[in-house]
């Protein structure tokens, strides 16, 4: 069983927590997420042009790049995380260009060496899978695809095909960290997806509070929280870990006590 499948086989829904690599003391931030009860860690790879992200994660990208974060730094952060937390699944999330700059084989192999379990690439849809998907699969890394409210029934099988680890359901047609979708629409879409696949479905975009997370955890296999955590890093800098631990713990409590979908 892979680390990702173990995380989604727990008796409760999984809490997936995102922070941007190189923004603040990332090692301490990641440890705080684990201590708070995160089941899966998403580590954002900073990019100059984060087109799918709202102001919070854009700002985190700028802070990270401004501090001089390189791809080598991101991989080093991942490697050290893996050494400290051998069992916690780690997923890299980012955009195509930094991932394929040195060639997709290079990236897949470097990520695998760093102990990465999955990769979410925002701007590689199934149509362009060749750009990175085969190389990730060959390296034993799960390409995690996104499904959205605009992914219709005709398209869904294509998204699911070749998706591994979990499916990330983007709750709103929009960018990260903005409005939250109505729970009714999330429930309808998640159940539509779950009729077509056994892959776990985690829901993200616009999830900020334990109340929202609890509601979503009733209908999904996992809940993703990003911008709310990233904002804490932006606001508290070096003091962020304790704040992150606190918010993660309240999110984990909410998500873990929900009945498994």
């Amino acid at each position, binding site marked *: 069983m892979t680390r990702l499948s173990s995380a989604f086989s727990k008796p409760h829904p999984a809490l997936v927590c995102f922070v941007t690599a190189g923004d603040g003391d990332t090692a301490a931030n990641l440890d705080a997420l684990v201590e708070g009860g995160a089941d899966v860690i998403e580590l954002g790879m900073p990019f100059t*042009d984060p087109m799918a992200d709202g102001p919070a994660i854009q700002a985190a990208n*700028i802070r990270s790049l401004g501090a001089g974060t390189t791809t080598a730094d991101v991989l080093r952060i991942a490697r050290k995380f893996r050494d400290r937390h051998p069992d916690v699944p780690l997923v890299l999330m980012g955009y*195509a*260009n930094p991932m394929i*700059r040195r060639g997709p084989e290079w990236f897949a192999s470097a990520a695998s060496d760093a102990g990465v379990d999955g990769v979410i690439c925002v701007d590689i849809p199934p149509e362009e899978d060749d750009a990175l998907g085969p190389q990730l699969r060959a390296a034993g890394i799960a390409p995690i695809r996104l499904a959205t409210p*605009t992914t219709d029934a005709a398209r869904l099988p294509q998204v699911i095909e070749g998706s591994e680890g979990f499916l990330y359901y983007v709750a709103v*047609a929009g*960018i990260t960290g903005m409005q939250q979708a109505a729970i009714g629409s999330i429930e309808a879409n998640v159940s539509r997806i779950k009729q077509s696949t056994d892959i776990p479905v985690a829901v993200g975009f616009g999830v900020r509070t334990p109340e929202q997370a609890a509601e979503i955890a009733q209908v999904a296999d996992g809940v993703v929280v990003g911008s709310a955590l990233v904002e804490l890093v932006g606001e508290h800098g070096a003091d962020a870990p304790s704040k992150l631990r606190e918010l993660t713990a309240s999110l984990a409590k909410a998500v873990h006590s929900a009945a498994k979908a």
Partner: protein
Amino acid sequence: MNSPNSFRTQPDERGHFGDYGGRYVAETLMPLVLDLEREYRAAQADPAFKAQFDDLLEHYVGRPSPLYFAERLTEALGGAQVWFKRDELNHTGAHKINNCIGQILLAMRMGKTRIIAETGAGQHGVATATVCARFGLPCVIYMGAEDIRRQQPNVFRMKLLGAEIVPVTSGRGTLKDAMNEGLRDWVANVHDTFYIIGTAAGPHPYPEMVRDFQSVIGIEARAQMLSRTGRLPDLAVACIGGGSNALGLFHPFLDDPEVKLLGVEAAGHGLDGDEHAASLLGGFPGVLHGNKTYLLQDDDGQITEGHSISAGLDYPGIGPEHAWLKDMERVEYTAVTDDEALDAFQLLCRTEGIIPALEPSHAIAAVTKRAKEMPDDAIILANLCGRGDKDIFTVAEKLGVEI
């Protein structure tokens, strides 16, 4: 029809020009991009669409634009004859309007009720605001805060035309940041919004579609050249930012092997430093804004900002078809510096009584070099893709003149 070895059959059915192009967009946009392609195919097959497009180009834009023999410039250079395709005489003063007419007709065909666009120098913003006013659709233009500062006259034009201008402060506040913000708006408003992209870049089918709408430039120029001189030019020249005016001129000539093609990038302060906007000559292949193409980027794939005296050329990417044409060696690419463009700008003012935009001033600078190396019975065709009214403040500042 195209021969099997034609350069004019790109892209393939997945929107790829060789290794370039494609549809590198977030899943939310993917169904929309597929929809757009379906609707574009239907429009291409619909004679009524073409009739309406042609009618607007003729009576609203003022096409065909003239083909003009630049006699005094030719004399001054002492070599090949220089001919200009006068797309600066279009309504709104640049080639951008050709594409905007096509895209807004498509938007209305798709039942979209809101238009968004990005702009750098403001020419595409003005053209978009113009067609939105003409068809009564609300228009939101994303423009970098820095570009707003540099291009006040165009900002005011857009406002007069009823557009809402949204200043973009993320990144360095220039064209690529405006495009990011346009994509963010689009992804949040997919149900009613059409994104009019201003150059032959972005996810498929934009590069193909923009090229097709702009090809009117080359189709007209080819026919005009044949009728005026009885032959095709030896060399066709156009400047390149994203590359839409160049593709518009070049595409109809791609299968005429006797016509050499020259694309001119902005070398800014010189290609040896970082202060240029030459994606093809100084960049590497990568993925940005929905397509794979040559990009200005560092070793980690972070996008770097270009520099050019011309705000219309300082985009860190380039249309994917140019990337392919470069690799196929069908088009030669070169670059000229800010200073060379500025000299060419003044030369055209004084020899021909035409104030060109700084963008085609780059093409003219390349023409001045090439013309001298060619015999006087050779013909160079250059695209004068925009007029220079918008640039007089920049030029005055560079020349140390207060106005």
